[in-house]
């Protein structure tokens, strides 16, 4: 979640969250919920939605206004003069793009893609072992992973910064994505293991009887069956890494290899001048995560309700 980072807890799946309705709650004739909202309730919801949307609408409108218009009148004045086309422009986007967003946009992908894809497979192997294999300390190790879910990743930053400096990794994309691979690992293993433990044991047993090795069972059976869980982790990780400021700022910093969050944070710092760049830059930085989020919301929600939390 936010960012902020936002933020998902390691808190184990509360039983209530699992979709375990045996019968549809809203069958014909029953309908205890749908449509019975009272007018006060509808108005409260309307007000909340309005309050939630206004800030975003404001920045979108501002980003399409000329610098002069944006600095001399509030964005809401477009409501009274929507047809005054002299106040609109798309130049902000071109300027912001040329002023560095083009560069950091690519950098963000260079960090986010490896940080999202590489941990999936490593975690899937581990989750398989935790679910389907017997070995000493298995449960202890898994409890440690569950505990690590809530540990803020700040705990790792001071020594990692020193370590990276020693091996000349500071300022390289790998410095950031390697760290994210490590930080994302407990959540990845947790989500995948929870999911795999709901797969029918009989399938695995019969594969064993047929003489399939663990490797083969994993690759041919478990991975394809686990795609929804893999997808929900991938979305989480993608949003976190793309939206992260702290780690990118520490390990890559501002400069040639800065990512979008660092560029936008730099623009916010400049008082007033260049504000039209800021609105457009901020929106460019949000386009990718918002698109990913909207397209794959279903998996995201499923991941959330699987009780995912990350420290």
């Amino acid at each position: 979640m936010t960012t902020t980072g936002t933020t998902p807890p390691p808190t184990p799946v509360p039983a209530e969250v699992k979709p375990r309705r045996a019968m549809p709650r809203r069958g014909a004739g029953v309908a205890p919920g749908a449509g019975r909202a009272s007018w006060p309730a509808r108005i409260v919801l309307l007000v909340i939605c309005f309050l939630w949307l206004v800030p975003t609408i404001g920045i979108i409108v501002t980003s399409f206004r000329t610098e002069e218009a944006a600095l001399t009148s509030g964005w809401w004045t477009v409501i009274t003069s929507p047809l005054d086309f002299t106040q609109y422009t798309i130049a902000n986007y071109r300027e912001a793009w040329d002023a560095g967003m083009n560069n950091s946009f690519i950098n963000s992908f260079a960090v986010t893609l490896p940080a999202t894809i590489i941990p999936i497979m490593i975690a899937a192997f581990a989750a398989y072992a935790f679910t389907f294999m017997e070995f000493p300390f298995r449960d202890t190790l898994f409890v440690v992973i569950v505990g690590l879910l809530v540990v803020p990743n700040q705990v790792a930053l001071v020594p990692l910064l020193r370590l990276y400096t020693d091996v000349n990794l500071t300022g390289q994309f790998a410095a950031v994505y390697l760290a994210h691979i490590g930080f994302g690992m407990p959540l990845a293993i947790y989500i995948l293991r929870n999911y795999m433990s709901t797969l029918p044991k009989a399938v695995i047993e019969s594969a064993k009887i047929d003489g399939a090795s663990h490797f083969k069972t994993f690759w041919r059976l478990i991975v394809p069956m686990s795609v929804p869980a893999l997808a929900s982790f991938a979305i989480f990780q993608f949003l976190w890494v793309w939206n992260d400021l702290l780690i990118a700022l520490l390990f890559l910093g501002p400069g040639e290899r800065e990512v979008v969050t660092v560029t936008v944070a730099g623009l916010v710092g400049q008082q007033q001048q260049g504000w039209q760049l800021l609105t457009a830059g901020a929106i460019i930085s949000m386009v990718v995560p918002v698109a990913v989020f909207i397209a794959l919301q279903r998996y995201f929600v499923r991941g959330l309700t699987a009780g995912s939390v990350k420290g």
Partner: protein
Amino acid sequence: MVRVINALLAIVGGVGGALLLYWILNRLAEMLPQKWEERVKPWVFILPAIAAIGLFLIYPAVRTIVLSFANATSTAWVGLENYTDLLGSRDFQITLVNTLLWIAVVPAVVVALGLAVAVLADRLGSGGERLTKSSIFLPMAISGVGAATIWRFIYEARPEGETQIGLQNAVWTALGFDPVAWLQVDTLRLNSFLLMVILIWAQVGFSMVLLSAAIKGVPIDTIEAARIDGANERQIFFRVTVPQIWGTVITVFITVLITVLKAFDVVFVMTNGNFNTDIIAVRFFNELFRNGDNGRASAIVVMLMIAVVPVVAYQVRHFRAEEAAR
């Protein structure tokens, strides 16, 4: 272009290399006698993951504790000096008080608002429900930096006499008051609360989605039974629904609590901790990055670790209980 190719190479190399490693290790394990093969294989499967966790979480965490007893450049031991200096400074005390305020306000408000929206939206038709949820959920995809940028344009202040382009001051001056530089007003910690609003705005969607799923999971017969027994809506909510979703309420609360503890971007971007708005994660960054003080930065992180110990304990206990119930 080179960067994109490099990124793709990193993915191919990372994934391919890992696969090759697994394949080779697996082959080697298969060459062992049957009994040993069974014993070694699980470790082949988990070793890379454990190595990543060890290298990027466990080892640095331990090292952070050690460094917290050393000086700024980690060249000499200073005992507890980092801790006593920090805790003795007025600045840091303000930081701690602010952090406690964030902890006290944000998770509770996020849970309450999320629950309210989930309950109310549940009663709308499915179209209205989806629309309501989407508008509140969307900020989840936006970064802390993006959220801070968005809210900059709400809190922006212009000198008296100029047109206000920040929404809050526009409303405020329309009501006849003088414009206020909101983020600089630390009376009653007003500016801290305004910053909390941003995080709350970003987090309520998460809380709403989880709680809504929990509410929909409450068996309808328990509600029907209560209704037949003559309970009113309020009684049904507090006596029947809430107890059944309590586990989820706690989950959401803990998650938001952890988010608050590590919250960095919003405050960093909006005020960088000035005007008495500093919180622990921003202070950590400034000690480490601005002042280059490894010792103090580590000491701050150790305090953070101590703060999450009860959460970790709860987490583990809860997990054990869930596993036992499986």
